[in-house]
């Protein structure tokens, strides 16, 4: 059937390169040089050993990325939730303008900001600190987060909050008991998208952190690659690629619903 063929093609195209890395990571150096020749000494785990026992060990980078991802996501939500709520309560024209500005900011290639942000890091002594990275990350994800959360708040029936006000709930109490619980799907989507962004971010992590113990995953991988273009240990690279990809593949598989719904509603509202 025509469709089956297309689906197979799609899967091959999407997963092929990654699967090739998996294959490569188990190949001995000898087998790499003669890839399609049958060989007794083909399979090995030595690449993984090298990567995991390197200095610093590979899992260090994963931990670093996790720390940065978690703190960025938390900070982003703390900033964006109140802002998303307040966006509905300012005069009409102002909120339309703000929304437009946020869409513009969301489209903007943040790479170009690296220089100014680097100056900021130097001025405020934020260099080489993992937690400090959460500041620019939280800021850069604000536009998307505010837009997603704001549309979720909009979908709530306004009478719920009115009833809560009459019951005597303060703003904070309304947030805690009503607003935040009721938009939890949108919050989950936003959180995972922000986490993904922080985990995958490269230019700012590159310029802010140079201490090899504190590198996040993307920067560490690039550093491994940058050592030399020639005589490159591709086996080890493949192992590193696979190890670096596993957390993300798991994340995508586990959180597929929030991810898809987050991107979809972002598109509809944008």
């Amino acid at each position, binding site marked *: 059937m025509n469709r089956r063929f*297309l*689906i197979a093609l*799609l*899967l091959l195209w*999407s*997963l092929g*390169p*990654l699967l*090739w890395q998996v294959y*490569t990571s188990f190949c001995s150096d000898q087998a*790499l040089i003669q*890839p399609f020749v049958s060989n007794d000494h083909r399979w090995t785990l030595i690449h993984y050993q090298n990567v995991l026992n390197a200095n610093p060990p590979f899992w260090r980078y994963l931990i670093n990325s996790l720390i940065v991802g978690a703190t960025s996501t938390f900070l982003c939500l703390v*900033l964006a939730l*109140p*802002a998303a709520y*307040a966006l509905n309560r300012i005069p009409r024209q102002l909120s339309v303008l703000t929304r437009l500005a946020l869409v513009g*900011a*969301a*489209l903007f*290639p*943040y*790479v*170009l*900001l*690296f*220089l*100014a*942000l680097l100056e900021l890091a130097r001025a405020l002594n934020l260099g080489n600190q993992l937690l400090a990275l959460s500041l620019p990350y939280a*800021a850069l994800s*604000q536009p998307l987060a505010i837009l997603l959360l704001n549309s979720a708040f909009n979908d709530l029936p306004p009478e719920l909050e009115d009833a809560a006000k009459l019951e005597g709930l303060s*703003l904070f109490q309304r947030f805690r008991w009503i607003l935040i619980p009721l938009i939890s799907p949108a919050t989950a989507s936003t959180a995972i998208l922000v986490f993904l962004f922080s*985990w*995958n971010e*490269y*230019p700012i992590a590159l310029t802010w952190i140079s201490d090899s113990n504190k590198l996040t*995953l*993307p*920067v560490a*991988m*690039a550093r491994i*690659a*940058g050592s030399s*273009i020639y005589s*490159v240990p*591709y086996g080890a*690279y*493949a192992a*590193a*690629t696979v190890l*670096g*990809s596993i957390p*993300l*593949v798991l994340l*995508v598989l586990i959180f*597929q619903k929030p991810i*898809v719904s987050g991107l*979809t*509603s972002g*598109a*509809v509202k944008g």
Partner: protein
Amino acid sequence: MTVFLLLPSLLFLLVVFVGPLFRYAWLSFHADSVMTGLIAIPNGGANWLRLVQDQRYWQDLGQTLRFAGVSVGLELFLALIIALLLDQRWRGRDLVRTLALIPWALPTTVMALGWRWIFNTPYGPIDYFTNLVGIGSLNILGDPNLTWMATVWADVWKTTPFAALILLAGLQTIPVDLYEAVRLEGGNPLICLRRITLPLLRPYILLALLFRLAQAFGVFDLIQVLTGGGPASSTESVALYAYWNALRFLDFGYSSTIIMASFLLISVICLIAWIGLQILIPTHSKSRGVIKS
């Protein structure tokens, strides 16, 4: 009261988005480099003049535009096909959609190494296949005429799922009745595509287009890791050039100028793309009815 709710977020946004633009604009009119002992000294439009005469910049600009144009064009085309494929309901659709999303979720630098190996001559699988087919060994990563295509390919691989998802979201807002009505009038799939799907999908295509165009113009991660800008600066992008000026040559003034120019260019390009799309896919057809005889 509500102002206090907005304030922290607003502060972060201003510092990160607005502040830099002013800073770049200011810095671009100053000399700030190793030569000046890293102190900013006003030098009028000297940086800008230098930019206009900088061969390397114009080469990079051309390369970046080529990269962005081809990449985004290819992406949208493939994304539309994928979106149409995923729009229907079939068994396993959700799983396929998730698996197709994986390329987008991986950090660029992580897969860039993988691409280096895949495109490697003579050990990579691409080389094997080109030899198999009879083209012979193409030194893809070493040939200035071919390397940019490898970067386009890697970029398309990573970002198409994202564009596909946006278009899919749009497809799902189109009521099925429209297609059925056209089919009753005797229309074929191609007409459906032209008269219903594309016009109604236009805002989503626009979103994907603008977003991807802006991002592609600022390409950095991929180029730095996959090719390092080479061979012979043939894949060097504008962002990479700005980065080197700042961190390798320590010329912050000039780097700011490059960035500022790039920002202005992106804005113009997005505007042109927007207008272009309105012209390419009109939503108000002057002909009566959907089917033109």
